[in-house]
């Protein structure tokens, strides 16, 4: 059966991080050529949308920029975030059944606290879209499946304390690839324990391994979680030809995943084999999401590649899935244990590196758990970098459902902190009032 697909195609032909950076003007040129040559834009069930510009307030529903988010971005970021929002609007207004925001720049490495650009990302366009949907359409439960080869550490950071967002990321093992995180023991803070799912895969994993994981694990997680909406962070660097990673997924592997997943909205993330992979993967995903035949979308050089998955990898993946099945089955019990252990406060200290800007950030997060509501959390940050020098900030984040007592307590703590003057900037991100307040 065919479905109407909204396609927000925005290759940003005039935007690059630097002229020879993987995120450069040329990145979606060959994808444009393939889409146009295939005639996909003439298919009556594929409706192309022009991206709108996101507003700064859309970004601040997610991000806290130091000193301001505006100072850290270019217009291109407003277009790509706006493109994701345009895709979401088209679906929620029921103009189309599904939508694909085939836009750049990407976003899944951008965390809540932003000092600059990391992993090619400044604005987490999926998160901006999801918070827009929550604000404007009352969407609650969201599942994100991140199919980029890199761990979606930005998205994980943003939703680590949110039990209503199931974040599933499969990626090349962090011991062998940027950003070096995304291990199976990163499961969410106690209140949201088990809604962060990391599936690190060994280099050389093929379509077989990926689909084994989907069929035996992800599909059940999605069924159990009962999301109102499914988002695909559709990174394409798991492809066998990608220059930045070492996996062995094909265009067919990606298209079949899109077909099984039936995401409401897909958003492009990475993928840097711009000639040999992206044209085919994107055509495959578009056809699959539109409910059309994608079986003939095959890379011309695939015959010669002889991709097979070693038995070592296969048994590793089977073990990984077994472990996860057990965690998933017992997740409620385990979550209660975590909550009990935390005694109301969960603290995490970590360092975050911004590869593009050479910034090193030290961050402390404190999550205050509450028996009556999702609680609240604070983020204290100090960062050093060649262009920014030293900068620091302290932010308190109130969820839309934080109870009056938590709200009071959070605000008291924030003003007490401000009095000490230990940080340069103080923020209150209040989801209920839908504002980012600078104190």
């Amino acid at each position: 059966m065919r479905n109407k697909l909204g396609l927000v195609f925005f290759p940003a032909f005039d935007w690059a991080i630097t002229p020879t950076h993987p995120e450069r003007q040329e990145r979606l040129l060959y994808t444009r050529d393939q889409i146009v040559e295939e005639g996909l834009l003439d298919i009556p069930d594929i409706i192309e949308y022009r991206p709108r510009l996101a507003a700064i307030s859309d970004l601040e529903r997610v991000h806290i920029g130091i000193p301001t988010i505006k100072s850290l971005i270019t217009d291109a970021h407003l277009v790509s975030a706006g493109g994701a929002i345009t895709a979401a609007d088209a679906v929620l207004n029921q103009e189309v059944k599904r939508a694909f925001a085939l836009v750049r720049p990407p976003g899944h490495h951008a965390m809540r606290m932003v000092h600059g650009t990391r992993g090619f990302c400044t604005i987490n366009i999926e998160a901006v879209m999801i918070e827009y949907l929550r604000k404007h359409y009352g969407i609650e439960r969201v599942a994100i499946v991140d199919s980029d080869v890199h761990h979606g550490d930005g998205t994980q950071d943003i939703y680590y304390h949110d039990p209503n967002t199931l974040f599933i990321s499969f990626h090349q093992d962090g011991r062998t690839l940027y950003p070096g995180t995304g291990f199976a023991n990163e499961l969410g803070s106690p209140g949201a324990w088990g809604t962060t799912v990391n599936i690190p895969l060994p280099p050389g994993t093929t379509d077989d391994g990926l689909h084994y994981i989907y069929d035996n694990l992800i599909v059940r997680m999605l069924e159990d979680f009962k999301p109102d909406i499914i988002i695909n962070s559709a990174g394409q660097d798991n492809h066998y030809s990608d220059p930045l990673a070492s996996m062995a997924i094909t265009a067919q592997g990606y298209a079949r995943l899109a077909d099984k997943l039936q995401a409401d909205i897909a958003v492009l993330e990475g993928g840097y084999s711009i000639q040999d992979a992206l044209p085919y993967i994107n055509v495959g995903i578009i056809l699959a999401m539109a409910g059309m035949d994608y079986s003939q979308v095959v890379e011309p050089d695939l015959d010669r590649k002889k991709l097979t998955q070693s038995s070592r990898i296969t048994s590793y993946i089977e073990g990984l899935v077994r472990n996860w099945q057990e965690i998933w089955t017992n997740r409620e019990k385990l979550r209660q244990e975590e909550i009990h252990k935390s005694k109301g406060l969960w603290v995490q200290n970590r360092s975050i590196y911004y590869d593009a800007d050479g910034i090193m950030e030290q961050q402390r997060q404190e999550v205050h758990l509450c028996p009556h509501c999702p609680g609240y959390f604070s983020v204290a940050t100090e960062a050093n970098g060649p262009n920014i020098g030293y900068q620091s900030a302290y932010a308190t984040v109130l969820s839309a459902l934080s109870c009056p007592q938590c709200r009071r307590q959070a605000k008291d703590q924030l003003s007490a902190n401000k009095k000490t003057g230990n940080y340069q900037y103080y923020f209150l991100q209040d989801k209920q009032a839908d504002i980012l307040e600078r104190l």
Partner: protein
Amino acid sequence: MLLGIDVGGTFTDAVVIQGQQIIVQAKVPTSHDNLLEGLLLALDEILRTVKAGQLERVVLSTTLVTNALVQNEIDDVGLIIIPGPGMNVSAMFPKTPITVNGYIDHRGRRAGVLDTQEITKCKQLAEYSIFAVSGKFSVRNPLLEQEVFNMLNDAYHPLHVSLGSQISGRLNFVRRTNSAYFNAAVWHKFNMFAEAITQALAQRDIVAPVYILKADGGTVPLILAKAQPVEAVFTGPAASVLGIMALHHSCGDVISLDIGGTTTDIALWQDGVPLFAERGANIFSYPTAVRAFWLKSVGVGGDSFVRRQNGNLQIGPMRLGPAMALGGENPTVTDALIVAGKANFGHKQLAELAMKRVANTGQSPVDAADEVLASVCRIIVGAINDMITEHISQPVYKVEDIINAVKFDPQLVVGVGGAVKGLAPLVAKEMGIDSFIPTGSMVANAVGAAVARPTIDITLRADTEQGYYSIPELGLRKSISGARFSLASARELAFDCLAAKAQEINIPQTDMEIMYEEEFNVVKEFYTSGKIILCRVQLKSGVLMPVLGKEVW
């Protein structure tokens, strides 16, 4: 003296223009069984006033190709495609294709070997004398199409083979394939017509060059049109747009209307230039690469049947006959115009009778007429607004184009056509802008044909990393030396090739313009290893001169 002949659905019009004036005009009924008859009738009427030797140029705008397609008087075409991997296209063409293996990729590289056996062994192919061949990315490298072409020639000695890459230099395999198919399908019919017209003109001692009007409003020499007759589809609306251009010097953003018997064709003009259908025209429901003005047709016109159903007024889209005021049996929009005092012909009493038939109980004929006209306006204005919305929300691929988005701020409605005098001002009023109806609008199409500029367009794409450039429309693929080839060199080369082509087919080489260009660096392992440059140039379309809209009956 320039002669323009427009074979329309009802009438065949001919005009002769000299020094910006219409000096002769003729109108005869279109002969549907044999378009040539009516055409020659109009021509002979002209030749009573003008000597054959005085004519400098003859331009024909004919419904021949459109009619052949609509009436299915076309040849059976052997359609061969080389789609390679991608979307399943087997059911996307007007005819089930024969699929041949082989692939050219997006960089124009040979990525899959042509399977020649399928061509030489396919028994079905022997049944055809006309073929269309189209391969994916053939505009990047026509090699596989040409190999199939050679094989067909050797094996089956066909009358004609249309190649997708020569029909259009632009990306879009499905559109090129449809274009090539339709081109082949009307090739024989058009060539018979071309033969007959050439003879008929010779018999009348007309030695002036003969041009055919295309859907994009440009003209091409008949000899060139014989190879690409599909471009002569939908010339009526194109002639009308050109006629408006000749009769009214538009500047700023304009909406033009051609209000006929049953349809109204709407075009948008940005900064005085009519907008084109970005990817090409649709023939029936098939998207093609045929360049055309961007027109929307709505099913209302002067003869549209008006009735009331369950209390609601219904207008068109069918015509049941002429207006009651002109002896018809059913109420029409024209009757409403007459009753409302916007038109002054026919029997007013009969028009009033018509309006009584559509009036609500207690509604006067004048009020009913106003209600009819308001509905007609709503339909037309609704379509105009949809077009404007579509135009300004056209996808763009650069940040700059999002930030500095195109605006469309119409100031004027320009109208031509039979029912325009009453309706155009109402539409303009509804939109809160002015209207203008050029005199001479009744022969606008023939005027448009007479003064249409000759045009050709070519697409140059250079890939300096691979060291070649190609111009598919010219069947050209040549090597270049990488290092110094820039966008400026591409432009210069494209203009040279365009000028050479113009010279070859004997049309003026003036007014060349760039339609589109882009330039990308190709980066390999973090070093720039070449450039990909695209440059599309054309001989400017439009009209040779303005024409004073004074009819000479």
